[in-house]
């Protein structure tokens, strides 16, 4: 795709260069656990990159490093060309588990980031209402998270992350807890919102279908420990896409087979390792 070609020439929005992350073991006699080893990965501005891999392959570690929540043991992270110091303030992070503040209403959760950044109350509320409408939840602003369904909470989390208009969006299996129908709705919504703003997205998932349907590029990770990218596949399916329809596209099936060939062995390896550990 021409879009990718021009993007590649630019400074990447997010670049991980030979990043290794080893967790210190509590017991001094066992060596630390290396979650990811020697990972080089970059996301161009406006590019949608998905990372797929077997369970426990350090995908969340990868995102935490990109977000600046974790400091890599080796290697460095660059954000729009500048070395990352502390938190990545140009990134929004959508977590896998519930991260909404339960003591804030839906609206107050959406506007939390704006409030932290000193946006005036009325203006923040106006933007918050607009975001609630965009994710289809206008009228639910005064509910507390526990009064909303799982899908609604994910929408609120999406609005909360996007309300700050981050240049990089990090997503950690954001829809994995949802049922299939809600999930497809959310995926389409995400694609629409992304198409409007064209931000760099690093999307982590274990669902290959989801990865192919959403992304410009899919990166396959090996099983942990010391997980690393095994291969990258450009997804040149036409956009705009509908995640349900694109699944029957002949090219989709072709890509799915090619990626699954790489992924299958790693998934089996991952399972074998987990079985041994437990």
């Amino acid at each position, binding site marked *: 795709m021409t879009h990718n070609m021009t993007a590649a020439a630019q400074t990447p929005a997010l670049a991980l260069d030979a990043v290794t992350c080893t967790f210190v073991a509590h017991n001094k006699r066992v060596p630390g656990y290396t979650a990811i080893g020697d990972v080089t990965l970059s996301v161009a501005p406006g590019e949608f990159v998905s990372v797929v891999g077997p369970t426990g392959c350090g995908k969340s570690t990868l995102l935490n490093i990109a*977000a600046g*929540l974790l400091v890599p043991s080796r290697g460095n992270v660059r954000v729009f060309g500048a070395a990352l110091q502390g*938190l990545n*303030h140009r*990134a*929004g*992070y959508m*977590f896998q*588990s*519930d*991260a*909404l*503040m*339960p*003591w*804030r*209403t839906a609206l107050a959760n959406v506007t*939390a*980031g704006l409030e*932290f*950044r000193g946006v005036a109350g009325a203006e923040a509320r106006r933007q918050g209402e607009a975001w609630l409408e965009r994710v289809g939840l206008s009228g639910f602003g005064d509910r*507390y*998270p*526990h*009064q909303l369904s799982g899908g609604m909470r994910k929408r609120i989390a999406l609005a*909360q992350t996007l309300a*700050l208009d981050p240049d990089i969006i990090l997503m950690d299996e954001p829809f994995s807890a949802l049922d299939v129908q809600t999930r497809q709705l959310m995926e389409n919504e995400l694609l629409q919102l992304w198409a409007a703003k064209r931000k760099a997205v690093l999307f982590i998932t274990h669902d290959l279908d989801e990865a192919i349907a959403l992304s410009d590029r899919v990166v396959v990770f090996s099983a942990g420990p010391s997980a690393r990218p095994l291969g990258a596949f450009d997804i040149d399916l036409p956009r705009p896409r509908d995640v349900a329809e694109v699944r029957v596209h002949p090219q989709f099936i072709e890509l799915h087979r090619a990626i699954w060939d790489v992924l299958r062995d790693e998934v089996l390896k991952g399972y074998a390792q987990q079985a041994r550990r437990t």
Partner: protein
Amino acid sequence: MWRALRPSTKNLVLWQLMVLLLVFGVWHVLTTPGLIPPFLFENDRQAAFFFGEPLKVLGRIWAWFFTSRDIYGHLIVTLVETVLAFVIGTAGGLAVGLWLALSPVAAAILDPYIKALNSMPRVILAPIFAVWFGLGVASKVALGFTLVFFIVFFNVYQGVREVSPTVLANARMLGASQRQLLRHVYLPSATSWVFSSLHTSVGLAFVGAVVGEYLGSARGVGYLILQAEGTFDINTVMAGILVLTAFALVLDWVVGQAERRLMKWQPTTGETERI
């Protein structure tokens, strides 16, 4: 008839009142001289002497509040001591709890001393406080403070440490500064722990005030009880205890109301909404 009376959530108050009546009834029957033959004591006046008589106790309370009206001064002193100890102790526990939970090094250094102070029987301090702060309100507040402080402190400390790491990371990614994290994440997260401790600590604030008065004072309900004990006036002692209990319940109710207001974000089990 029985359907209306059968214990259920609707006539809860009725049944609670009936339990109260039953207790008073049994008390009355067992202590009133001459009503039933004495089975524990040698003569039928002794039960009344040791346990008081409910009618006289209630009469005493009635006189305090409505005829002689001489309890208000004492009651206000006791309530002021209680509320001051409660408020200062809670504020102190909250502040120190937040501070130590957020600076692990200070917490590690102070850990043995906090444990020591907490396990010390603090009622022993009452005479020392009387020497330091005099026989007025201050020494009772100091005693109540030592009781309330540790309960709130330990709960805040625990509450802050149990903040969900994901919620915390999310707030940081949304750009919260340290101050904002404190105000918008740590404090609200700790409040549920604090409120569960406040019910205990409001009772302990009362204990601090009354024990303080009991050990040396010139005013307060504890002082009244002490005076009555000096003359073996068991009815007045019982009346004082009942008044204190009633006001402890009132304070507990106030805390409960505040809790309901501030904690409305918490799910109650099986809550449904009629739209």
